[in-house]
């Protein structure tokens, strides 16, 4: 069984809560860390292990108001993992929560959704919800 992983957020990196028993990966905040590849490596590795073991459904819950381009590339890698799992019959989905007043955040989520076929819900919320 994969262990839970929690990474405290900072100004430029999201709070990360990866909950193995619930099968939920939560990323909340903004993402433009000094080195996005280093930041995302343990998160991607966690997802890889989680999907390799067991059969618990996996949900990626994102509240990311901004991702820089390096983080976007890492997010594509993470989504590709979930997409492949979905294609091979594992339950995997994405719920992307956006501030309804921030069109750019919604557009970014929509662009990610264009590239995958797994269930991908974009939820518009009021600010601060």
């Amino acid at each position, binding site marked *: 069984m994969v262990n839970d992983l929690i990474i405290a957020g900072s100004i*430029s990196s999201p709070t990360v809560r990866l909950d193995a028993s619930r099968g939920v990966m939560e990323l909340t905040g903004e993402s433009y*860390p000094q080195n996005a590849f280093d930041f995302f490596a343990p998160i991607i590795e966690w997802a890889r292990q989680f999907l390799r073991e067991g059969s618990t459904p996996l949900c990626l819950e994102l509240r990311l108001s901004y991702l820089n*381009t*390096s983080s*976007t590339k890492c997010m594509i890698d993470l989504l590709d993992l979930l997409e492949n799992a979905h294609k091979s019959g594992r339950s995997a989905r994405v719920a992307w929560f956006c501030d309804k007043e921030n069109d750019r955040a919604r557009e970014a989520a929509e662009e990610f959704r264009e590239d995958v076929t797994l269930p991908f819900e974009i939820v518009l919320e009021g600010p601060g919800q």
Partner: protein
Amino acid sequence: MRAQALDLYGLRKSFIDGEVLICFNGPFSHSIIEEIGIAVKRYLETETTSRSAVSDVFAVFVELAQNVQAYTGRLKDRKDEAGLDAGTLAIGRQGNAYAVSAGNMMDQAHVGALALRLEELRAMDKAELKALYKERLRGPRLPAGGAGLGLIDVARRATRPLSWSFREIDDRYRFFSLSVII
């Protein structure tokens, strides 16, 4: 050493005349980028009601600042020139729009390739830029550590064509300056 005190009034006047809201000159560290980023967002949120404009200015700021930081980091071991590790960044108004400008010293050997990339981006429309962005998203990571996506993202958010210059400093260096209107 210095014969005259810094002309602070002259500096101030050129900021006001150039409608500069925020300016930074010096070595770019990650924490400085974070701090300026907070200031940029706070300032813009009081000035404009458009969340999209705030997002675009902030995003362009982050990509340009991280490019400057990465490139000046490559030059910082060269002790032969003063100011190689310093970048210059300004965020200001241009009429009803915002301008984000960033500059740094650049080895003239690197100028040609960058100029070519910028020319290519300037010739593309938004749909072509999106297609290129998506193609690069799944491409290999570049040796410099970046994803090669930053300038494409900046071009996508710009509301007018990118403008840039390479100012000759000496035999070896140029000052590269890029300005993005949002």
